[in-house]
Every structure is written in C-alpha cells, then in structure tokens.
C-alpha cells in the first residue's frame, strides 16, 4: 500500500494515505455532506405531517386489526396463485431469452467485441428499467392483466440472468472445450458438452435466485394493472377496506417466506 512520509529532520510524520488520496476521500465526504444538507433544506416535507406520523401509523394499524381472514377464499387466493404464475412464467421466459444474449456477451464463446458490446447493451438496458416501468410499458401495449406482468418480469430478469450467465460462461475452463474442438465436434455439441456442464450449477442457482426475487416483485406489479395480488391490494386500498389490506399484506408476506424456504430447500437438496 501507500505510505507517504513527510521527512523533515527527526519529525517524521507517517500518513497512511498520500495527499491525493486524502483529497479524494475528503471530496467524497464533502459531496455527501453537501447532498444531505441540501436535501434537508429543500425537501418539501410538512412538519405537522412528520410530527403526527407515529400517531397516524398507530391509527392505521388499529384499523387493520382484526385481519379479515374470511375474504381469503373469495378473491385473494386466486390473485395469489396468479402472482406465483406470473413470477414462474416470467422467470422461465427470461431464462429462455437470456441464454442467447448471455452467450453473445461471453467473449470466449463469441470472440467479436461489437457483438459482445451489443449484448451487454441489451443486458444493461433491461436492468436499468425497473420492473414497474416495464409493467407500465406492457400494460400500454397488451392492456391490463397477467400477460403484461409476465412480460415485465421476464424483461426485467433478462439483464440479471444474462449478465450472470455470461460471466459464468467466461469463467468456464477451456480444457473440455478444446478437447471437443480437437475431436471435430459441431458447435452444438461444444455448447452442450463443453460449456453447459460447467455452467449448469451456476445457471440453476441464478434461476432459483431470480425466481425468489420475482415472487416479491410480481406482488407489486398489480399496482399499475399488471395482474396478480397487487391488483387486489390496490382495490382494497382504494375502497379503504383496511382489514382486507391487512389480509393481503399477510398473504404477500407468507408467499415471500414460502418462496424463500422453497429456494433454500431446493438449493440444499439439488445443487
């Protein structure tokens, strides 16, 4: 590391960082403090609202109790199932779409920098757009409903899955691939027997991880009309049916926990 010293006779002062490094650190602190101060000064917050927030939260919780369990079989259950379908179908579609893009992004498989960059651009743009925005776009195209939600989940996941698959492919050992090339194997066999066995564990682990995230995300897509339990939540909120809101929140919480448990168990048993 860097230990700059200012030698002046016997008074040697030891510094851990050079002057330039200290300036850089100081600049970061300065920017952060300036950002916080400006944000505090300019943000439009009504102090009365802030002061009475704890009371309002308590009131809200009070209205949510007791939870309206009776509404579950009526419409919450089907919405919950739809949410799981959206998450699963969206993940599957994303896996199918992301594989070719991930392959294109891996330099050792496709040794063409323009193609790699193009694939990376696709992956970055997929990731920079929030799934709610994707949902808005697809609701605009396909109309409200689960189809828009599924596509939103899929398009948001392409970037995530494709990036990680591309990285896994780039880390693959060249040995088995070279052996196949030397044996004159066609490219499909090289992919299937040279690369696939090496990236398979990573691929399934990425798929499981993304499915877990997608279950959480698909629960909110309904707020913009893209199907699932979010739509039930939106309806209950607009009608001020607080006990039902509490039920839906409990259902979302339960499904998130269940998804996490399923993923951990599958990972432990299979991977």
């Amino acid at each position, binding site marked *: 590391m860097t230990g700059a010293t200012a030698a002046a006779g016997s008074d040697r002062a030891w510094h851990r960082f050079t002057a330039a*490094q200290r300036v*850089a650190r100081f600049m970061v602190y300065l920017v952060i403090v300036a950002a916080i101060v400006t944000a505090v000064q300019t943000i439009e917050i009504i102090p009365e609202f802030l002061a009475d927030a704890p009371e309002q939260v308590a009131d*809200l919780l009070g209205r949510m109790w007791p939870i309206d369990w009776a509404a579950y079989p009526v419409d919450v259950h089907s919405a919950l199932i739809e949410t799981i379908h959206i998450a699963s*179908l969206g993940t599957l579609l994303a896996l199918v779409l992301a594989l070719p893009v991930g392959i294109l992004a891996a330099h050792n498989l496709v040794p063409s920098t323009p193609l790699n960059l193009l694939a990376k651009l696709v992956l970055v743009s997929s990731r920079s757009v929030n799934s709610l*925005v994707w949902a808005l776009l697809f609701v605009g195209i396909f109309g409200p409903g689960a*189809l828009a939600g599924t596509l939103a989940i899929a398009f948001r996941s392409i970037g995530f899955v494709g990036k990680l698959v591309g990285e896994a492919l780039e880390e693959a050992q060249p040995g088995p691939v070279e052996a196949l090339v030397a044996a004159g194997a066609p490219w499909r066999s090289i992919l299937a027997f040279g690369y696939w066995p090496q990236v398979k564990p990573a691929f399934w682990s990425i798929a*499981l991880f993304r499915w877990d995230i997608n279950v959480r*995300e698909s629960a*909110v897509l309904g707020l913009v009309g893209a199907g699932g339990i979010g739509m039930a*939540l939106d309806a209950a909120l607009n009608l001020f049916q607080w006990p039902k809101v509490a039920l839906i929140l409990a259902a979302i919480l339960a499904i998130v926990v269940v998804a996490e448990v399923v993923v951990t168990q599958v990972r432990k048993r299979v991977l």
Partner: protein
Amino acid sequence: MTSVPAAGDPFARSWWPRVGLLALAVYVVYACAQMDISAERVETGLENAGHFFGRLFPPNFARWELLLKGLGESLQIAVLASTLGIALALPLGLMAARNLMPAWVSWPARAVVVVARSLHPVIVAILFVKAVGFGALAGVLALMVASVGFIGKLFTEAIEEISLKQVEAVRATGAPFFSMLAYGVLPQVFSRFIGFATYQLDSNLRNSTMVGIVGAGGIGGTLFAAFQRFDYDFVCAILIAIISLIMLGELFATGVRAIFIGNATLADLFRRGAVQRRDRLVEDE
C-alpha cells in the same frame, strides 16, 4: 429448476431432464390457460406495440421544469432515506451480531431487520402514504425501512465474520466498549460497509424514481400521471431522464468504492482502466 441429471456415467442420457422438461411444458400451458394468455392476445398486442412505440418517439422535453423538479425530489428522497437508513441500521446491525452481543439483545434486533426486509419498498410506501399523507416524506420513510433491512442484515453478517483476535487485543488493554468497537471491530468491516452503503444508495435511487407511482413523491408520480394521460412522448422523456440519473448514480457509487476500497485518487478516476468495475452479484430487488 426440477431437472438435474444424476452423476455417474458421463454419456448416459438420464430421463430426468426429459420428465422435467415435459412437466415444465405442461405447467406453462396450464398457467397460460389460467391467466388467459393466448397467441391471439400476444398478436393483437404486437400490433399495438408498433403504434405504441411510434407515439413514444420522439421524446418530448418541453416540460423539462416539471421533469427536473421530479428528478430533484427523487434525489432528495434517495439521499435522505440512505442517510437515515444507514444511521439506523448501524446500531441495529451491531446489536444483531451474535458474536458481540448477548442473545436477548441480538434476537429483537434481528426480528426488526427481518420485518424491515420482508415487504417490497413500494408496498411499504403505500402504507406510509396512507399514514403520513402524499409527498416525499412517505417516500423517505419507505426507503428508509428498506435500507434498514438491507444494510442491517449485511452489516450483521460482516460483523459476525470478523476476527475476534483484534477485539480481544483491544479488550486486553482495558479499553472501554466503544474503543473496542472503534479500533477492534469497525476497521475490519469498513470496506464491506462502503460496498453495501454505496449499493444501497444506488438501489434507493432506483426505487425513489418508483415510489411516486403510489404517491410517495419523486419523478414516479409525474411518470404515472403522464402515462395515464397517454402522454407517451413525455413518458419517453421521463424514462430517458430516469435512466440517465440511475447511470450517474452508478458512476458515483463506482467512484466512491474506488476511492475508499481501491485507495484511488481523483486523478485515477479519470484514468481509463484504473477503476475496476466491481461486479455485483446481488441485484436490486
């Protein structure tokens, strides 16, 4: 997800993948039927898509003042939520660390962190909008909760992985508790803390552009309103602005990580290749 062939003879064609694939196909057909997804719907949609994208372009920046105001508010929400969230998460994360704290302190702290992590920030934002009214305050509070959950969890894990030798050495000198923290614990977790703090700032910035959809302030409200008015060229302008803001945020985060973890100087930041882009495994949720 279901199909993993058994190890053994490398050329044996296991039947598990086929069964898995078949089951998957059956599921896809069943789920599509359940949700009324059909080829014709996709087809009509694709016809709409051309029309839709035609109206999206060219982007209309005529109302740039509204746009800037929304972006500014999103930025304020992200900054304040990150600050408050980190400030709350540090003591909580410390309290939740089982190697430093007794069980009666760590379990309640863990419970708080788990609850904060469990709900999607947008859902938390809805609740805060109902509780404290429309506006940026609800957004700040919602993202603060999300930050507490994320930073709290990772900070706890980082502390639980430290080497206790240094802690013991500081303790052996008779140092009080806070000196032990400052000289035994914090130096060991500082670089990881920078990693997830910048990551959380990034993630808060992304979410602060979204919480407006439910009325919690920021550019999201403008986006949703423009969308509902079918003002698609303005929607396009807002999306471009959001994506640029997020990319700027990512650049800032990369710079901060290079300075604090990579010991870079300001000049290094502008040197090509000096800043290694740190790959991130955990994506925003």
